[in-house]
């Protein structure tokens, strides 16, 4: 009965959406804002990667909100798991085999380096702060799996999170005082397109986001690991 009712509801939704989709031609150029970004994104923001110029330039406010969403989730997860849980019941875990342990220790700095490369070059190549941050967090995940018993220090991860967010908001607020008086306006020199030191505040914001996302996701992993031990 329940399944039948659900199917009926879904069928209604499917028909409705199908009708609307006919109005959106697939695979054709229908955009008007997107076209403008492609045309003038390089000149406006100085980033060779137009997706980056949208994410950290034209729609940077969304990205600020997005960073905040992740922050909310990390803090909320910590709050949910912290209250009333029996803390201090940590049992000794069996250490991983020597091969695994050595492999993880070998890979850990390389993965960090790769993550850093991704977020530093966000304005030139595919990638950026979120992707780089996720790679950095995966390095920490590897350590949790391979070198059991090792933990990140909460003080440091919290401070990184905080500073990353503060740099983002601070750079934005500086824009209010700089030329143009707009929040998050790109007031630094834009340099030459396709060079590492170009695109004004975009690389700085992406580095801040990379650190912040890396610290937050590592913190989320840490919270969940702690709970399941």
């Amino acid at each position: 009965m329940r399944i039948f009712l659900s199917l009926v509801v879904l069928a209604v939704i499917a028909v409705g959406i199908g009708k609307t989709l006919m109005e959106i031609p697939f695979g054709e150029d229908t955009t008007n804002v997107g076209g403008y970004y492609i045309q003038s994104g390089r000149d406006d923001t100085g980033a060779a990667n137009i997706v980056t110029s949208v994410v950290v330039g034209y729609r940077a406010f969304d990205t600020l909100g997005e960073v905040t969403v992740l922050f909310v989730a990390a803090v909320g997860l910590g709050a949910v798991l912290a209250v009333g849980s029996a803390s201090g019941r940590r049992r000794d875990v069996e250490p991983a085999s020597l091969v695994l342990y050595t492999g993880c220790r070998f890979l850990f700095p390389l993965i960090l380096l790769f993550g850093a490369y991704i977020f530093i070059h966000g304005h030139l190549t595919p990638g950026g702060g979120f992707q780089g941050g996720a790679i950095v967090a995966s390095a920490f995940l590897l350590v949790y799996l391979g070198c059991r018993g090792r933990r990140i220090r909460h003080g440091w991860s919290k401070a990184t999170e905080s500073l990353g967010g503060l740099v983002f908001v601070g750079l934005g607020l500086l824009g209010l005082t700089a030329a143009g008086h707009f929040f998050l306006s790109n007031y630094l020199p834009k340099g030459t397109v396709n060079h590492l030191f170009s695109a004004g505040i975009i690389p700085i914001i992406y580095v801040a986001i990379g650190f912040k996302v890396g610290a937050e996701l590592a913190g989320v992993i840490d919270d969940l690991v702690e709970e399941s031990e």
Partner: protein
Amino acid sequence: MSFLESYAYYVGAFGLILIGLLVILVKRNLIKIIIGLSILDTGVNLFLISVGYLASGTAPIFSREGIDSGSMVDPVPQALVLTAIVIGVAVLALALGLAVRLYQNYGTLDMRKIKELKW
């Protein structure tokens, strides 16, 4: 079959969305419901990306000189999907955390048995 050919991506994306909704409506295990939410999110993200699709288009990156800007796909949906993925991850992390705590308190993840409150 011209409909399926020209709308294949939309059909796939909305297929995932409908599967996700069905799982959420029908399943009783919290983990399965969360999996349903995740499928729903994936479907929405795929749909957003396929809105910006351009037949035989390239990535919107001026990585070298002489790239034709006319054949680039729309960058906006890609930016939106980046945001939507992060939001999906946030919800997922919180949902899993709540599931862990719920299991500690009730000893089950079956939503039929978790009925302290009246609906």
